[in-house]
């Protein structure tokens, strides 16, 4: 029972991660794929943060008195601040990749007139067939 309660958090985050992965793999719309990627990413963040949590702990900020002088109380337990820092960096990097992905979506829509994966594949296949046919004609039907 203790094992179950102690690991339930991780499993819950894995369920969320897999929902995000499902959106990325199963849905054809490119904007929705990026939303799914964000869901996946936030679940990974939650997994990391939950690793740094200490039972009975509090946020790693030291209390100060009215003059702003820091008082150290050895009885207070603090959660691990290191995962927080790593995830802060990861959130900002995540928004950078998201914006790059969205810019690519806008560019794809400009070029193909669609942001559905299947439409884009069909257009590419048609273009490849057309090119093959032209090369074949240029070789006199021998290629």
């Amino acid at each position: 029972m203790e094992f179950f309660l102690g690991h339930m958090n991780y499993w819950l985050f894995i369920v969320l991660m897999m929902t995000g992965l499902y959106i990325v793999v199963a849905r054809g719309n490119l904007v929705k794929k990026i939303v799914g990627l964000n869901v996946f990413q936030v679940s990974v963040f939650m997994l990391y943060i939950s690793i740094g949590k200490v039972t009975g702990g509090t946020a790693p900020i030291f209390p100060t008195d009215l003059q702003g002088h820091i008082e150290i109380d050895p009885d207070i337990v603090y959660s691990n601040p290191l995962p927080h820092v790593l995830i802060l960096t990861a959130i900002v990097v995540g928004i950078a990749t998201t914006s790059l992905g969205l810019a690519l979506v806008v560019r794809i829509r400009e070029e193909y007139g669609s942001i559905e994966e299947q439409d884009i594949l069909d257009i590419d296949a048609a273009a490849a067939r057309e090119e093959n046919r032209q090369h074949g004609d240029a070789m006199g039907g021998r290629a």
Partner: protein
Amino acid sequence: MIETLINIALFAMLVFTALAIVRMDRLFAVVMLSGVFSLLSAMLFVTLDAVDVAFTEAAVGAGISTVLMLGTIALTARREKAPSHSSAVPLVVCVVTGAVLVYGTLDMPNFGDAKAPANLHVAPDYLHDSIEEIDVPNVVTSILASYRGYDTLGETAVVFTAGIGVLLILSGLRRRRRYLDEDEDT
């Protein structure tokens, strides 16, 4: 105990939001739900003692990325087409991946364990020494800006690169549009 209940309630809301994102085909609703997802996860971060992360997630995840996605759907399409291929294979892939990940968590330390390896290496040193060495009440700030300042510098480089990438991809969008319009007029 109350904390576990809050965690489970927040998690239930997160799962419902994620499932609604899967089912919804209007992109505006999908983008709004992704903002809701970010805000709910920010609340979960607060219960996990990560107040700085919650703050950043609420500002960046729910704010900036929602705005960027709204801009994208304004430039592209409002609706998603129904998927043409079946969704059985992705479902199997996700279930198998999830099962492997769950197997991977089996030998992890319990949630909230103060003796977990992740909480024993440098974190106690940071908590113990940062007052003398940095003298900032918020330990997250002193790690971010001082102990791991190079990480933050690298992050800035990544954001800069991404910004240049977005500008290069989108530059000339309006110019090409005007060009195409003139083509159609003549």
